[in-house]
């Protein structure tokens, strides 16, 4: 039921993930951030088994940071993607990490890029990609409306179209999504799309009983 999708635009890449943490029929929380900031100019949007998702993405994040400390230069998006794929491939020989990843990044020399890495260590450099049941809907919408070099406004409009489609057509659709973007200025949160808010306000007082 987890939905992750993303696309590459003109000088940026955007990734979207749902924000529900689900266990069987219970929704534990609906504001779980599944898009990790890998380094200053990279994002990992991950979906899959709960423990594996955090464990694996943190492992990659720390190794990417270690490389930068050791060598004084950051990894390129392509190198980070291939490293991630290699780790999944190595683990696969014993038991796979059930994590699907969309890795988005911006490199000064090569611009924005998006990598599709699934849990059995396939790697594809793509312009648009999606995982989960939501992919049936988001990929169709992106196939229809995507074109190379979209502006941020056009891309976010397409993202909203995909979210609307998922919400209206997927039976157990997640209510909330987070959108993150990466461009020459770095990786950052762009917006949330919430249709159900976790309320933190105190409940309204009960009305006084009639005299």
């Amino acid at each position, binding site marked *: 039921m987890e939905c992750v999708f993303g696309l590459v635009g003109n000088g940026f890449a955007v990734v979207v993930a749902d924000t529900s943490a689900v266990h069987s029929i219970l929704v534990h929380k609906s504001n779980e951030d599944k898009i990790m900031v890998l380094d200053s100019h990279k994002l990992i949007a991950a979906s899959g088994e709960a423990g594996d998702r955090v464990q694996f993405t943190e492992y990659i994040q720390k190794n990417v940071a270690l490389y930068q400390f050791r*060598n004084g*230069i950051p*990894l*390129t998006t*392509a*190198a980070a993607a*291939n*490293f991630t794929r*290699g780790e999944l491939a190595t683990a696969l020989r014993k038991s796979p990490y059930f994590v699907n990843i969309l890795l988005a990044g911006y490199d000064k*020399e090569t611009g924005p890029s998006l990598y599709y890495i699934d849990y059995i260590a396939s790697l594809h450099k793509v312009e648009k990609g999606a995982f989960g049941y939501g992919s049936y809907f988001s990929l169709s919408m992106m196939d229809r409306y995507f074109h190379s070099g979209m502006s941020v406004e056009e891309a976010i409009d397409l993202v909203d179209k995909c979210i609307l489609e998922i919400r209206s057509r997927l039976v157990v659709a997640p209510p909330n999504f987070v959108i993150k973007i990466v461009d020459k200025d770095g990786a950052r949160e762009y917006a949330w799309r919430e249709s159900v808010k976790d309320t933190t306000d105190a409940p309204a007082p009960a009305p006084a009983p009639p005299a």
Partner: protein
Amino acid sequence: MSRRYDSRTTIFSPEGRLYQVEYAMEAIGNAGTAIGILSKDGVVLVGEKKVTSKLLQTSTSTEKMYKIDDHVACAVAGIMSDANILINTARVQAQRYTYAYQEPMPVEQLVQSLCDTKQGYTQFGGLRPFGVSFLFAGWDKNYGFQLYMSDPSGNYGGWKAAAIGANNQAAQSILKQDYKDDITREEAVQLSLKVLSKTMDSTSLTSDKLELAEVFLSPSGKVKYQVCSPETLTNLLVKHGVTQPATDTA
């Protein structure tokens, strides 16, 4: 001198020296000189060959220059059999990096990795250090052309011009005088041949006593490592006035 502390590589002498490492560097001081010069458009490596014989198969074997990866090459000075082991280690390390990251290994990281291996032999295991010094020449997209020198202790440094092997101090001082920062590759070739001719023991330079290699970018942007052929080398030696042209016998 504390001779009692010589034979074990992995202990300090009371003066705080590692004698085995120093003796390894002595061994290199008897080997053929190698010089490296960094220029704007490439790196030049020149080596003096100690094994000169007409019987040597020069087209297939090199004594001083080796290619580590498509974008990195090295010149060696010291014990050849030790050098072969380290060159193979460096080659494996470069490929292992490319296997993980699908990109060429940055030159400094390759040098650092090999030096970490060499350092191990000065600290544990009870094995002697490698009796080889290296000059690494390469190109990567982070820092462009680079020249590194490393020695048996596992220390390394980035250089604009460096010399290893016999008479390396004399060569280094000539390089210090004559090197300029904006030197071109052609000028670097000329300078390296000139320095070698001054520091070599033999009376005249001929192409069979030298190896010359260059690391540069082809017009299409790919890194090229080229060892000079004997004919080209002879012409270069004559052109730069470093050797007497063959006189016609009557």
